[in-house]
């Protein structure tokens, strides 16, 4: 499945700030803990299609845990930058 938004679980500290800014309110707290002991957030498969790639979650996230891609329809060819490169 194509996910426009991904959370790097090793980075997420479960602060929930992204949840408060997502216009579609599709981000939720999972029940998983990461290796650092933090609960992490997720966008469940059921709702992921509702993601508008607005990147609000990424902008507010203090821990660089969110990657967001434009929906393919809008993406121009050749632009495939990996968010976390460099």
């Amino acid at each position, binding site marked *: 499945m*194509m996910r426009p938004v991904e959370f790097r679980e090793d980075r997420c500290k479960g602060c929930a700030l992204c949840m408060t800014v997502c216009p579609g309110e599709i981000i939720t707290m999972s029940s998983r803990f990461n290796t650092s002991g933090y609960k992490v957030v997720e966008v469940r498969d059921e709702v992921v299609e509702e993601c508008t790639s607005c990147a609000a979650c990424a902008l507010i996230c*203090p821990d660089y845990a*969110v990657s967001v891609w434009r929906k393919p329809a809008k*993406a121009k060819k050749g632009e*495939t930058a990996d968010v976390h490169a460099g």
Partner: protein
Amino acid sequence: MKNGKAAFTLPGVLADIPTHYCPGCQHGVAQRLVAECLDELALSEKAICIGSIGCSVFIYNYLKVDSVEAPHGRAPAVATGVKRARPEAAVFTYQGDGDLASIGMAETMHCANRGERVTIVFVNNTVYGMTGGQMAPTTMVGQRTTTCPGGRCADNEGEPIKMTEIIASLGGTAYAARVAVDSVKHVRAAKKAVRRAFEAPLNNLGLGFVEILATCPTNWKMTPVQANKRISEELIPYFPLGTYKNLMGEQAAEGTEVEG
């Protein structure tokens, strides 16, 4: 969707490692905005970062630029020395409110007054984060901290200091603004302000100063979400956002520009 176009890209100058900050701590956002501006203005090769003493002391681990650690409060003096020694460098400090507004008050005021061509990024979280949440000059009246356990009392400890207003009033300041990163809109505006705070000295106009209101959930004893709400509910009303000075020829109406 990794081969879609990124809707959000981390700046290359930002090291891709986990931060040491507490969950929800907005130092993470503030330093990302600095990194984004360094990238956008293509400054990483000529940037020199003056780190300060506070929770951001490890900023040199995150920003891949030449860095030096200043004693507590003295970053503006160190920046002066660096900039005068290397006029071609893009010199900036990153300081907390205890560092900049308390012990470093004189260095901050005089760096601004001389109009040093440096950028000061000032992260105001109304508390001494690193040392365990003591009162800062910016602590709100009534706010409880470990050294004002009954809440800051204006009569005894004074009112929270508004640094941006003071810095804007000094002759050497070319740009001064206060921003927040508590909402997406504010993050976008903050980014603009940080950028201008870098541009002003690079345009040889004087000091660039940006105050970023930020949370310290740990020492505020709040969840990150509660802490973030406090920014708009309590902090912004007292510390109004806006551009307080801008010599770069743009409209500089107070309280408007960088908020938009």
